């Protein structure tokens, strides 16, 4: 096999994340990883598999089950010069470390008037559609987008997962990194990763599909629901543009406004509950900055304001669907 062929192998989302962690651990001797079962086991999903063997128990730390102590100690390590990757075994468990994130980590730079910066990335598997039930299905990104001082990232492709993770690990601001666990081993989205140093900047949305009639703004797993909806809509003569935000904080308003200058219609999709969800924030920002661009009231497609239930019919009943996205697009187009 030639060298070219060997590097042209398609890689899945999980492998891309692991490559990012390994490359940054190699590049930065002051980087540490900490979490539950991330060392000996290699993580519940295997994102950190092999890291402890490679970098040792001092740098890849198996912590007792305490999200609060894990985040708090990562804050201390960062205070003393380290960059720390914190794994939440499931992003649902992040609530156990909530105080340390929003009151300790997020505010550190602010309350020290810039004396201290925090190189802490908190990452973990997130999202529904997998039968994970109430405590293994959450998307709770809005809690943290609402807490000043935190950046919030949610990639949808393997190459973004790698490039955004590497950017996160070099950012001296705390980053919440939402990984769609349903995508970890999804072979249909596996791709050849860019060669060399691959960094994806924060605050730059990606246009996943171009269209003139309606703008679909989304992120994470819902990117694929929106792309499917766009296929359905195209057959019906409606051309949707699909924007993948990639990062919620910072938010790329410019790309959305440019799209709306063309489509004049906005549908925002996220799988978190509607009330105070990030879709609402996008709608509000666009109403502030681009109201005159809109020919129809913007529409949100989100989870119902419920927890995520277990049994399949229940789960699908509350989470946003392709059909709902299609219907929402028709609604704004026909307005």
């Amino acid at each position, binding site marked *: 096999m030639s060298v070219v062929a060997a590097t042209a192998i398609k890689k899945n989302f999980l492998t891309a994340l692991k490559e990012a962690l390994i490359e940054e651990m190699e590049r930065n001797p002051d980087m540490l990883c900490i979490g539950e079962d991330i060392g000996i086991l290699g993580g519940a999903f295997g994102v950190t598999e092999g890291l402890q063997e490679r970098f040792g128990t001092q740098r890849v730390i198996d912590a007792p089950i305490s999200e*609060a*102590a894990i*985040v*708090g100690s990562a804050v*201390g390590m960062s205070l*003393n010069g380290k960059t720390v990757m914190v794994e939440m075994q499931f992003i649902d468990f992040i609530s156990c470390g909530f105080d340390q994130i929003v009151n300790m980590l997020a505010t550190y*730079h602010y309350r020290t008037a810039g004396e201290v*910066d925090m190189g802490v990335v908190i990452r973990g598997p997130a999202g529904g559609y997998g039968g994970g039930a109430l405590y293994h299905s959450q998307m709770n990104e809005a809690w943290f987008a609402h807490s000043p*001082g935190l950046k919030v990232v949610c990639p949808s492709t393997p190459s973004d997962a790698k490039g955004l993770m590497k950017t996160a690990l070099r950012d*001296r601001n705390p980053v919440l990194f939402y990984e769609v666990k349903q995508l970890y081993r999804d072979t249909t989205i596996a791709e050849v990763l860019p060669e060399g140093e691959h960094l994806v900047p924060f605050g730059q949305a990606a246009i996943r599909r171009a269209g003139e009639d309606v703008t679909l703004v989304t992120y994470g797993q819902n990117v694929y629901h929106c792309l499917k909806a766009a296929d359905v809509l195209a057959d019906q003569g409606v051309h949707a543009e699909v924007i993948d935000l990639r990062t919620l904080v910072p938010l790329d308003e410019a790309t959305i406004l440019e799209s709306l200058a063309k489509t004049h219609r906005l549908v925002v999709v996220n799988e978190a509950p509607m009330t105070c969800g990030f879709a609402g924030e996008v709608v509000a920002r666009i109403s502030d900055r681009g109201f005159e661009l809109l020919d129809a009231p913007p529409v949100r497609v989100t989870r119902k304001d419920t927890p995520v239930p277990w049994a399949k019919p229940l789960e699908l009943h509350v989470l946003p669907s392709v059909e709902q996205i299609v219907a929402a697009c028709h609604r704004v187009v026909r307005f």
Partner: protein
Amino acid sequence: MITMAWSFVVTPNGAATDNPAPSGSTQVLSPRPSERLTSEEKREMLRQLYLARYFDVRLIKEKKKGRLTGTLYSSHNQEAIIVGSLFALEPTDWISPIHRDMPAFFMKDMRGGWDRPGRMSMSVEEVCCQVWGKVGSPGRARDNWSHIGSREKRIIHSTSMLAGTIPVAAGVVYADRLNGGNAVVLTYNGEGSTAQGIFHEAVNFAAVHKLPVITIIENNQWAYGTPTELEYSLPDFARRADGYGIPGLVADGQDVLDVYDKVMQAVEHARAGHGPSIVECKTFRAYGHGDHDDDRAAKYRPRDEVEEGRSRDPIAVAKRRLREQGVISAEEAEQFMAEGKGAGEAKDADFPPEVVAYLKRGVDYAIKSGLPPAEEGSMWVFREDHS
């Protein structure tokens, strides 16, 4: 309730007894590290007790005169904990003080001189600027009272979430160890915060990783308006240490030498790589939770309990012990009679002149300093120039 708490560690004349050996499996290195202190060092401890007390007295007076706004959290009657524990540290060690330890922010690394260049501490001017909410505060007055810190001076920034800095302290010394350092960290906590989950989670984390984290519990018998019997059900927190497999020590929090002995034992234990300890310092909160609470505290706390709790002033206890050891003369013990006096009664003449002058410097500086410019309110949410 308080009588039971005292009886464990203190004889009726106020001298510390030999405590039982600390629980946990590890041998204590020196039973009485204070025996190695020179007479001059012991006199310095007494001087620092006056300094910590005068800080408190002066701020209360300033507020009564209307020259200061904001809530004061008095450390009156708890100064032996601050002075005795800080005396056990090296300059490169870290501390994590809370609201009841305000003098610690400028008294760290003071053993070798109050104005030594390069002292690993904030200046009294900076701390006074913080109290007055002026721009010269280390945190540029972005958060109030004790919510300051300094990475450079190795003081962890406190927040209102009590016990929440213990995991941060653990992370700091974890990193220090990787950096090749040998620093320990002292975290200060009220007994009230021991009911928080993070207290347990962080001490357990430190114990598992054998981190040099010394958790001081300033047991002043009251968590705001809640007495100890409604806070915990153990006679001593030393027993709680058993649950983590680490040493637990109990100190007479009114006796600066006993605090020094117990904290120094914990420091030596940590420095030798044996990991964390809990040091409970039994004391009594002299006033309300904050000065806003003084009037109500006078009602919710029985008068005889307050009188008993304040009956062993740390300055008086130190004088007695230093007198017994022949460190100070009878005449010296009669000088500067600040002990037993509240802020209303204490006069500048009750304190050594250098103490009064030192604080005056800080207060004058703070009063003359400016407020932060309004636009700073929206600055430093994010670090913009990340690389």
